[in-house]
Every structure is written in C-alpha cells, then in structure tokens.
C-alpha cells in the first residue's frame, strides 16, 4: 500500500513516537505540575522540554508562551474566540480551512464581528496588497491566514502580510496546520502574533496533539476553565 493522505495526517509515524509514548506510560505516568514527587517532576520536565523544542523549531523567544491543545482546531478556536470581542473586524482569505471559517462565521452570525475576505486567484495565491487595501480603509483587529492550503498546497508570504497587518495596528494569527514540520515557520522574523499548529501532520506525532503560540502582551479569554489547581481564578 502507498499512503497518499499526508495532508490529512502523516502515516506511518516514526517508531520513536511509539517509544516516547511507551516510555511515558511505563516509566513516568504522572501528571505535569502535580506535586513534587519524582514521577510528576519527570512529567513536568517532559512538557518543558517539548515546549523548548517547539520554540526552537518556530523561532519563538520564550517557550512559556506556547500552550498545548488537542489539535489545531482547538488552537484556532481559542485564538479566535479568546481574542475577538463584540464589534471587532477581521480580515481572512478564501483559502482558509473550515476550522478558521466556522468559528469566524459563527461570531459573524451572532452579530459579534465583521469579516472581510481576500480572494485568492485561480492558482490559490493571495496578493498581500489586497490585505493592505482593506486595512487602509477599515479598522481591523485581527488578520487570520492559512500558511499553506491543504487543498492546493499554495503558501502565503506570512512575513509580508504580518508587516502589513502591524503597520495598520492589527494582529496576525497564522494557521500552520500544513506547514509546521514540513516548511520553515519562523515566528520571530515573520513577526507572528499567534501561531496555531497540529502535532499529527508533519510534526509526525499522534492525533490528539496540537498547540498555540501567543505572543507576550496578548491575553486570551479562555475557552475552557478549571482543572489546573485551586488557586487560579
């Protein structure tokens, strides 16, 4: 059999993935951040080291700004719902995945936000100047772009769009579902404010893993509350 569905999920995963998961279940087992016994410390170190590796991969200065999620859909939902407020305006493209379009459309249908869409051309490419045209006229809080399309494979120049967004006082959320692990994703030189990624595509991890980088200075309203100890609000 030849597997041709890597844009959906990578297969087969490297044997190191199974070994790492087996090592966790056999030898570590405890919860990250739970108390101070040896197993819990090991689990916390594992999470810490994973954050550090991801920070290196994506050129993120402070690995503490990375959170782990179940998948990139959850990451995008946290970013979109946690950042946008009633009355905000958003620019996105016609090349977005439904995990961006559906949360955005939901907020729009509820009368919370207004969406402006940059149309891609026949090759699936978007013109960065089209973002500038909208950003010049409208007060936009967030630009949401798919780094690479799962349908056409077309890649957008993130750093160019980020520069345009920042010039007009807007923030940028990049959906790196298809590119993380397959194509360079540079949050530092790309000047990316939020970066959503999944673990199970080109990062070669198991399903049920993903994450979100949130630049310092951006505070998101949480989607889910509780579960991390009693002291937090």
């Amino acid at each position, binding site marked *: 059999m030849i597997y041709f569905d890597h844009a959906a999920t990578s297969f087969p995963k490297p044997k190191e993935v199974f070994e790492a998961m087996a090592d966790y279940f056999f030898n570590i087992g405890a919860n*990250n*951040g*739970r*108390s*101070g*016994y040896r197993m*819990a*410390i090991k689990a*916390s*170190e594992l*999470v*810490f080291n994973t*954050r550090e590796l991801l920070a290196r991969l994506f050129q993120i200065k*402070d*690995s*503490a700004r990375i959170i782990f999620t179940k998948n990139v859909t959850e990451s995008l939902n946290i970013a979109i719902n946690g950042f946008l407020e009633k009355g905000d305006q958003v620019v996105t493209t016609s090349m977005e995945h439904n995990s961006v379009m559906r949360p955005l459309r939901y907020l729009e249908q509820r009368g919370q936000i207004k969406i402006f869409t940059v149309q891609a051309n026949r090759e699936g490419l978007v013109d960065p100047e089209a973002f500038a045209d909208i950003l010049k006229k409208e007060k936009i809080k967030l630009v949401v772009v798919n780094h690479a399309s799962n349908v056409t494979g077309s890649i957008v120049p993130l750093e160019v769009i980020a520069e345009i967004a920042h010039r007009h006082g807007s923030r940028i959320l990049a959906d790196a579902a298809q590119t993380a692990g397959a194509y360079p994703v540079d949050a530092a030189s790309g000047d990316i404010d939020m970066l959503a990624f999944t673990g199970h595509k080109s990062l070669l991890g198991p399903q049920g893993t993903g994450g979100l980088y949130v630049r310092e200075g951006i505070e998101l309203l949480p989607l889910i509350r509780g579960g991390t*100890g*009693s*002291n*937090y609000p």
Partner: protein
Amino acid sequence: MPQAVVIVFKSTHDVIKAKNELAKACIAHELIPTPKEISAECGMSLRLEEPLLSKALDLFQTAGVRYRDDLL
C-alpha cells in the same frame, strides 16, 4: 544549619526552568510539593538554603523565570 526558604513560581514551566538554571549554576536545591500553608495550587515549589537565595533570584531575573516575590 542555615534556615531554608521556599520559592513559589507562577507556573510549572517556571519551576522546571528555575531547577535547570540552579543545576547549571551548581546551586543546591530541592523540588518539593508546594506547602499547603502557602498555596492550594497542588503544584511544586523549590527549597534552598537562605544564604543561596539572592544568587538564585539573580539567576531567575537573568533567565526570565517568573516567581512569586509576593510570597517570599
């Protein structure tokens, strides 16, 4: 024996970062469950001897480790 101090951190990430920084600088320390008298967060904290505290805090400052100075 010198008095021991307990340092509480803003997140588990910061505890592990602090532990790594102290290990690199060969400063003796111990990870402990956060004492319930200090906080109900059920996480971990760091204990070290009082004379080592200022050196440890300098290290944390440089490395960007976020600790609870309000509890020190």
